[in-house]
């Protein structure tokens, strides 16, 4: 009975993106902790995750739920930023704090989305607005 909700594309996508936002928070925590470590390269969620996700939606087609479930976000060194400091560290504290705030908003939106799905299901079961 509850399969259609748990297996809906949006719900599964929100799940994966929540995983990614928690991982990104971990990466940002590491980056800020190591803001003064010489040679440290900033970490972020691997760009494979975003590009695979984009490819799945390419051409206006919706991916199957199983395709989304097989995706796993991973952490990787961010090779897109260059180290501008003499010690080879590629962390910029301002952009890390901005990324952290953006990630916070993303996380809030996704938890809300997942909550709404569950609330809808509860409403269908009880017949009352929860």
């Amino acid at each position, binding site marked *: 009975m509850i399969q259609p909700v748990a297996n809906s594309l949006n719900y599964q996508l929100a799940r994966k993106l929540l995983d990614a936002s928690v991982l990104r*928070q971990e990466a940002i925590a590491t980056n800020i902790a190591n803001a003064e470590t010489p040679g440290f390269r900033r970490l972020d969620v691997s760009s494979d995750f975003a590009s695979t996700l984009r490819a799945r939606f390419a051409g206006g087609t919706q991916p199957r739920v199983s395709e989304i479930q097989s995706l796993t976000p991973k952490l990787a060194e961010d090779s897109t930023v260059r180290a501008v400091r003499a010690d080879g560290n590629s962390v910029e504290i301002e952009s890390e704090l901005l990324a952290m705030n953006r990630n916070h908003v993303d996380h809030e939106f996704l938890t809300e989305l997942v909550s709404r799905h569950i609330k809808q299901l509860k409403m269908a079961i009880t017949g009352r607005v929860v």
Partner: protein
Amino acid sequence: MELLSGISATSGALNAQRTRLDVIAQNIANARTTRGPDGGAYQRRVVSFENELLRSVGADGRMTSGLSTVRVAGITTDSTPGQRISDPGHPDADAQGMLTLPNVNLAFEMVDLITASRAYEANLSVAKNSRQMAMKTLEIGR
């Protein structure tokens, strides 16, 4: 996986920065201490940090990259000689009336103090953010 994501990296950094602040406070407090337990003028202390790997990332399992935190590697003494001034009336002056001052440079210490407290604040805001995210996660479905 922790409930508060990244809290071990953040707490390590907070600890390390606080130690650094303590040492800077000690250096500034002793900026004019001309007699220590060893009889000589105070020598400034320097904190050095080291990197500690928490979890390796990357499929190949190489240990170079990963979630890592910082911790205090050690507190060493800066052995640069202090400034020598002529002050024959001073009780710690030598036979020639010369007095060795500590090698503490207040300007350096103040800059270091600002850097350390900014780094501390940045890590603290990460900890706050992690907490808010965890609270939000716990509210899923409510």
